[in-house]
């Protein structure tokens, strides 16, 4: 659905169902240079399982207008204001990559009042090399292509896809191309500059789940494993794929999330 939020056209994917504030809400937060289409195979899946689903296109991403947020904190404040505007209270936040950092900050703002946190291919820090930072400014399309190829496991190279006929690379590139050109550079700088992750992770008091990827080159498994150690009682799973876990292993990921959710109060 499209709403006017903070003076800008803002798109929220709802998984093909309308938003019902009386149901538990799953709020999916996309990664750097991505948009709601990172969660194609999660949004409908959970909306049809009886949850209210929102997958916001962050400002300047996907179908949303506006200026991109310039820090992880700004992203988290934007999401917090959105949840307030939509009057959503019973919220589980699911972040992918940069979305995990935003989830950490959002949890700080909300003083652990979220129902749960789910980190997909996440870490407490996502340093970005200078080459990619520069390229994302000079040639965001090229930078996107590199991220799409680095980001996927062998399924990307070999055009293997659980979704018949789909190509991870072709689809991934075009999803990133839908964003406003300056969005990627803002995202990558936000990730690179974020340094409060250790503190934020240590202070998580809500149920937490992490699903990490063995062949992740964007947020390496080593970093993800260090991250989950910081969180008290974080249920952790490792899947055999690359960084783009939501499209590389949709069924496995959905099933892990589903059983985690079913254990929540």
């Amino acid at each position, binding site marked *: 659905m499209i709403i006017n939020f903070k003076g800008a056209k803002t798109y929220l994917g709802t998984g093909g169902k309308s938003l019902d504030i009386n149901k538990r809400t799953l709020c999916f937060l996309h990664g750097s240079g991505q948009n709601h289409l990172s969660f194609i195979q999660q949004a409908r899946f959970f909306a049809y399982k009886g949850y209210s689903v929102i997958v916001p296109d962050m400002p300047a991403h996907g179908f949303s207008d506006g200026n991109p947020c310039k820090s992880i904190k700004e992203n988290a404040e934007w999401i917090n204001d959105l949840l307030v505007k939509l009057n959503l209270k019973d919220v589980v936040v699911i972040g992918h990559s940069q979305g995990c950092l935003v989830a950490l900050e959002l949890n700080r703002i909300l003083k652990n009042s979220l129902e749960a946190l789910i980190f997909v291919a996440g870490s407490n820090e996502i340093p970005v090399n200078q080459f990619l930072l520069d390229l994302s400014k000079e040639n965001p399309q090229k930078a996107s292509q590199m991220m799409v190829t680095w980001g996927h496991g062998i399924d990307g190279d070999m055009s293997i896809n659980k979704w018949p006929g789909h190509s991870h690379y072709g*689809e991934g590139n075009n999803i990133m191309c839908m964003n406003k050109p300056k969005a990627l550079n803002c995202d990558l700088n936000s990730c690179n500059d974020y340094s409060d992750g250790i503190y934020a992770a240590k202070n998580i008091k809500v149920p937490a789940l992490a699903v990490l990827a063995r062949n992740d080159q964007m947020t390496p498994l080593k970093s993800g494993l260090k991250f989950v150690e910081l969180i008290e009682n974080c249920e952790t799973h490792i899947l055999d794929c690359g960084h783009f876990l939501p499209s590389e292993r949709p069924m496995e990921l959905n099933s892990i999330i589903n059983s985690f959710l079913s254990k929540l109060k």
Partner: protein
Amino acid sequence: MSENYKFDTLSLHAGHIPDKETGSRAVPIYQTTSYVFNSTEEAASLYNMEVGGHLYTRISNPTVAALEQRLAALEGGASALACSSGMAAMHLVVSAICSSGDHIVASSKMYGANINLLQHTMPRFGVNTDFVNPNDPEAIKSAIKPNTKLVFGEVIGNPGLDIMDVPEIAKICNSKNIPLVLDATFNTPYLMQPFKHGANIIVHSLTKWLGGHGIAIGGAIVNGGNFDWGDKDKFPTISGPHFALGGISFWEEFGPSALIAKIRAEGMYNFGPSLSPTNAFHLMQGIETLPLRMKKHIENTHSILDFLVNHEMVEWVKHPDLETHPDHEVAKRILPKGSGSIVVFGIKGGREAGKAFIESVQLASHLANVGDAKTLLIHPGSTTHSHLSSEAMKEGGLTDDMIRLSVGLEDINDITKDFERGFKAVKKLNK
């Protein structure tokens, strides 16, 4: 992990990795109509398009999907859909995008069935087409109307071998927010990848060079994922609510793959032109050697062009790689590896000469197909167009002496020897 595999590697591997249980190196043929659901929930999630997977072979099949994913990789597209023939692919695209009252701009020089579909069949359903010269971007531009929903043409036209200036036409389509749909059968992704030049949707007859062995009919649609379908008034079938699936908007939910999702959910469901898994396997076997075959097709074509151009019995020869072809400069620019292995030529002596030639060759097969590994010939004047007068043929851009040659992979000396046999028969006739 990324290796960024190159074209030759993808031709062999894309779409399949041996599975852990069987280790089958070849793509298995999943000769099944349907798939056992693990639970009612799983069944529902497939029906609702919540996640990818197979539920019925009319909609998708693992062997067919391997072919689709190979094609998507070779073309650099977001997604692909394989179907029962090239014509089925064309109809699926047109019917997914257009509704009664809509308009199409198409090349006037195309394969007969492509023309017939747009000129005679679609108007019965309220979709009308204006045909324009494919090598005249300005004419294409001025034919576009407010209700135009797509521009269609063949990269290399059949049988006239006109070349579309794809980058120029793509620019026009892009500025008008209209998808450029190209039949890329004659070039295959080996000779040219239309998405790199700004095209949006590719239609293939896999029956031809991609399959390459003349054993299976098949077609495919490859979706570039590079078109914005967001204008709900203009493209209501893609971005407006669908009649099923809770009024889904394919554009909102599937973004770059909206068109393929729409075609699976409507075209494959309701028209049902599915490709058999066994034919998908055969076509994939062909694609494995596409780069090797295309190289040899082009090599042999260039040799045959030399032979024909210099032959006393040949009145004229047409191929875009010849400097005499009106689209030679465009061909050099967009098809630098060569512009396909179809050659058309005229034999001195008109209709009777063409007939005598065709009936005297032995190695080349006289039949109605192109793109086989074997050399193929047809003489429209004595077969497909035999009912037409010379004048009527001329009006359709054909001449009664014209032979269409699909150059195969045989030893070039054997092909030319065979042709000499044909020319000898013509000489006898002319005496």
